[in-house]
């Protein structure tokens, strides 16, 4: 066979069946788009941090990093540089800061550098050596994306807030891609070390020392650094932050990735549906070619060529759609990660993302082509010719159904078993449930048609009986359509149900977290929602605490601690706190005993996932790397991770103050006397702090609202995926139903010839669509509720977030109705057009 034959034959096929082929392409493109968009969004989050880390790290291999935000004396830099196996070392001062301009407000990573920086050769380093950077005086350097976001240029003034103080600063220069490459999109602001030290109030201190060892002396250099660190600093690889953000983002990425995969499956099913619409024609096409002497091998080549062409075109369209989706829908940076990492707005499209999505599209097309390929299997051409007509109602032979039901029962039992016995496998349980649903569907559809048939004996007009017969005639197509709807509703109810359970759990947790005080005083805004930024308590606040309005004012301390590859959230409440351990979040341990142990000191409560990662149980010793050295504490209880997926540790406030050697606090919790409303209390605190204070004063309710908003932003992608999947499924089903209706025109013409009014014919079509949608959506809703149980358990386990399960009955009902109504409305239009077919069409091609 000449190489031009497969394209020529496919072109001939396309000319006749271009609409059906386009429909199949739309299904594949939809799946590819969703998968690609989610991948790009996830890669961009981690990638933006990686770019910044690598840009700063340059050729350094290790970093000495402070265990708190207070840093350490810069004199240590000389000690490091003096080590025999250290080639170069440069100090850095890094701090989270907020920048405000009349136009915008954003969080940045403030970086102070010295001339030593030039000895390393990172992207950022090269640009700061000489022209910019260290020679600047009392001004900062901004990347162009950030400058554009803030609406400032060289020479403009902006207000920089850091550690509870605010200072006006001028922009020295704006650097673009030419100077700093991809860092031009990073949320990083650079200035000379002395100026940044002044801004942060950390005179003579730095937070990092980047170290480049001599060639071949990595291990030796590391040992020397550990000696210099003296268990008061950490010695980590220079790309440590990139590893930490990957770990922190991992659980949510896992969830979104899995749900994107479910969307992909829906896309594959739609493509399969579209292919099924033309199965008889494809079979005829195959048999005609076989009769004309084409061998099975040649047929496989021809069909594979067609599938690969369709798959390639559809995948390319999907990539383009996904690109738009990632720019317009999935562009939001998950707010929760910016609490601890400098996440930028850079959009990164990696080759891996493109390759995975493209390969997914090709595999999907090949999967959808299995049916026509199977037709090549008959051993003789005459078999192919005489087995071409698909007998109506033979989509799934009746003898298969008991076996399918038995297989479904096994899968459902498996899903139940993993939920009870092996919860970490519940993701496989969700897939098992989805498969079981598809296996049950033919029997449910058959049963429904039987029921509708009986009902039609009572219904006037008997149009239902015609609709039932038409559906029986196209059972394969009806099953495929119902399966698409069922899977979409199943996926959506499972995902969105689990998402709501997560939010419910997080809301309850956050309510308990902020409910310990009437008014909160903290530094910064959204970026400090975990209350980790330290500040010195203003004297005015101490005075107010002794006034009659305030019942109590407690210091709250907290921060991040890098522990065994995780950036852990530390919460250290004042010993006078009523409930330092949130009762609702306790997983293991006795609350009263743990409470008493914590107040007594030398004890800690860790989130269950972290404890497992560290290999410790309640009662075991846990070793905490603090700025005072490694401190042994006893693990007295475990909790959920309180909404921070890498893990959480609760300590007593006094322990924290002693080990972190600082009088600074991260917040002040204020209880008001009876009779003072939270709003009035907040205003009193504000006036006590004075108009120049940049500290944030909020009532507990305001803080809770902010936290709820942020947790919704962080998990919004789950909702977006579920909504997009539903929308895609509704459109897909409507398109497939429309195509199916259009193909029925010949038979509709017969009804018209027999004297049926157009309205009657239209009603027959609507009834067909309604039965398919009802079966698919209802089954999807029922299995979706079961899937919600597993998905909630699975997301709870992977993210470690607190969850509160509540069956999403209303959601299931609304989803069911939504999909059914949208698809029905869309499909009713071509149905109306098809019902007006001329009765003379029944005489054509006799």
């Amino acid at each position: 066979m000449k190489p031009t034959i497969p394209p020529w034959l496919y072109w001939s096929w396309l000319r006749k069946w271009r609409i059906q082929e386009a429909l199949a392409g739309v299904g594949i493109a939809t799946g590819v788009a969703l998968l690609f968009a989610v991948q790009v969004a996830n890669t961009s989050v981690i990638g933006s941090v990686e770019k910044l880390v690598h840009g700063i790290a340059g050729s350094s291999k290790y970093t000495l990093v402070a265990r708190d935000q207070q840093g350490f004396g810069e004199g240590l830099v000389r000690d490091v540089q003096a080590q025999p196996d250290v080639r170069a070392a440069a100090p850095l001062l890094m701090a989270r800061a907020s920048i405000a301009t009349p136009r915008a407000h954003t969080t940045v990573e403030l970086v102070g550098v010295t001339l030593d920086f030039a000895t390393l050769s990172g992207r950022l380093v090269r640009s700061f050596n000489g022209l910019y950077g260290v020679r600047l005086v009392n001004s900062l350097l901004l990347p162009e994306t950030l400058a554009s976001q803030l609406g400032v240029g060289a020479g403009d003034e902006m207000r920089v807030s850091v550690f509870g103080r605010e200072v006006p600063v001028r922009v020295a220069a704006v650097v673009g891609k030419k100077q700093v490459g991809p860092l031009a999109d990073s949320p990083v602001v650079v200035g000379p070390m002395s100026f940044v030290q002044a801004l942060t109030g950390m005179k003579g201190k730095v937070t990092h020392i980047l170290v480049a060892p001599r060639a071949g002396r990595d291990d030796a250099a590391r040992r020397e650094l550990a000696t210099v660190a003296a268990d008061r600093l950490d010695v980590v690889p220079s790309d440590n932050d990139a590893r930490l953000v990957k770990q922190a983002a991992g659980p949510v990425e896992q969830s979104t990735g899995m749900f994107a995969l479910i969307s992909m499956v829906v896309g594959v099913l739609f493509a399969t549906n579209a292919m099924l619409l033309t199965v008889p024609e494809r079979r005829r096409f195959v048999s005609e070619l076989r009769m004309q002497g084409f061998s099975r091998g040649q047929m496989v080549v021809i069909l594979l060529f067609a599938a690969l062409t369709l798959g390639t075109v559809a995948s390319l369209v999907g990539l383009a759609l996904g690109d738009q989706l990632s720019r317009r829908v999935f562009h939001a940076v998950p707010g929760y990660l910016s609490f601890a990492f400098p996440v930028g707005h850079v959009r990164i499209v990696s080759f891996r993302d493109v390759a995975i999505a493209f390969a997914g599209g090709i595999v999907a097309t090949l999967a959808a082509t299995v049916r026509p390929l199977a037709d090549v299997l008959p051993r003789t051409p005459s078999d192919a010719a005489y087995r071409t007509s698909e007998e109506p109602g033979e989509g799934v032979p009746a003898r298969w159904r008991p076996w399918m039901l038995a297989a479904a029962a096994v899968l459902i039992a498996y899903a139940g078993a993993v939920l009870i016995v092996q919860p970490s496998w519940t993701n496989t349980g969700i897939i098992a449930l989805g498969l079981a649903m598809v296996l049950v569907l033919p029997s449910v559809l058959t049963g429904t048609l039987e029921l509708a048939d009986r009902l039609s004996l009572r219904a006037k007009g008997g149009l239902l009986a015609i609709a039932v017969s038409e559906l029986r005639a196209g059972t394969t197509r009806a099953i495929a359509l119902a399966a698409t709807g069922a899977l979409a509703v199943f996926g959506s109810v499972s995902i969105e149900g689990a998402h709501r359970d997560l939010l419910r759990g997080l809301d309850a947790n956050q309510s308990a977290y902020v409910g310990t005080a009437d008014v909160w005083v903290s530094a910064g805004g959204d970026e400090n929602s975990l209350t980790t930024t330290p500040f010195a308590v203003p004297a005015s606040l101490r005075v107010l605490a002794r006034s009659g309005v305030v019942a109590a004012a407690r210091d709250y301390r907290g921060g991040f601690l890098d522990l065994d590859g995780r950036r852990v959230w530390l919460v250290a409440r004042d010993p006078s706190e009523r409930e330092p351990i949130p009762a609702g979040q306790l997983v293991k341990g006795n609350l009263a005993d743990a409470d008493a142990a914590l107040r007594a000191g030398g004890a800690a409560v860790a989130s269950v996932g972290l404890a497992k990662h560290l290999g410790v149980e309640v009662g075991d010793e846990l070793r905490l790397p603090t700025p005072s050295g490694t401190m042994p504490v006893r693990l007295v209880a475990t909790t959920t991770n309180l909404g921070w997926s890498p893990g959480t540790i609760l300590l007593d406030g006094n322990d924290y103050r002693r080990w972190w050697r600082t009088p600074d606090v991260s917040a002040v919790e204020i209880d008001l006397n009876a009779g003072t409303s939270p709003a009035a209390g907040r205003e009193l605190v504000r006036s006590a702090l004075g108009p120049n204070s940049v500290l944030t004063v909020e009532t507990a309710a305001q803080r809770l609202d902010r936290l709820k908003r942020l947790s919704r932003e962080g998990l919004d992608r789950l909702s977006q995926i579920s909504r997009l999947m539903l929308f895609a499924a509704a459109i897909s089903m409507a398109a497939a139903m429309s195509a199916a209706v259009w193909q029925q025109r010949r038979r509709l013409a017969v009804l018209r010839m027999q004297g049926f009014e157009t309205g009657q014919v239209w009603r027959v079509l609507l009834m067909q669509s309604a039965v398919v949608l009802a079966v698919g959506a209802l089954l999807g809703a029922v299995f979706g509720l079961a899937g919600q149980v597993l998905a909630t358990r699975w997301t709870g386990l992977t993210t470690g977030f607190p969850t509160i399960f509540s069956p999403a009955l209303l959601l299931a009902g609304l989803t069911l109705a939504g999909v059914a109504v949208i698809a029905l409305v869309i499909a009713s239009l071509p149905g109306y057009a098809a019902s007006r077919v001329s009765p003379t069409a029944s005489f054509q091609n006799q």
Partner: protein
Amino acid sequence: MLELREVVKHYQTGNEVVPAVDGVSLTVEPGEMTALFGPSGSGKTTLLLLAAGMTPPDSGAVLFKGRSVGELSARDGTRFRRSELGFVLQQFHLVPCMPAIDNAALKLVAEGMSRRAARKRAAPWLERVGLAERREHPPEKLSTGERQRVAIARALANNPGLILADEPTGNLDTSRAQEILAMLADISHGEGVAVVVVTHDHEAAGFADRVHTLRDGKLLDGTPRAASTRPVSAISDVG
């Protein structure tokens, strides 16, 4: 009952005007079976569509029971087909997966009758065509001859005045074809229904009361019933 007067129908194919039916006049009386022979493209099916009021003539008149059916509105055309006509076509055009009795009752359902009542009324017709025992079988489980008999029962279920049959034996073997033609003739005579059979099958001449030949849209002379007793070979030149 059915009268075509100087009916003309042309089709436009590109720039070419094709005369499908060219000045045909024809009368079919109740209880009479008329066979129309003609080669492919001679205008047989167009003539049938004109008779059914499914396409308007360019000139001339199509009358059924004295009423013009040539210019019916879509709605009136539907009602006319539903109440007065029955169709028997080569491909049977039965609703797949629907029991024979429901297929036979289809027109009655179109009239708004309940399915139960329609089945009851269609049952005698199914019995008449000899399928009482197979009433619950869908078309897929019937032989081709049986399928055509269901189509005949369907055509009769609404007591039509006229049955139009387009190649009713085209998909059948000789013995089954004769069976169907005999059944149509019997129904025509027994029920007083006018039957027009458009066919290639010369066997039809043996059962028709009147035989016409259509060539290039023109109707050649009709052959009266007596002629239908001639041997098949004697009329072999008409096709």
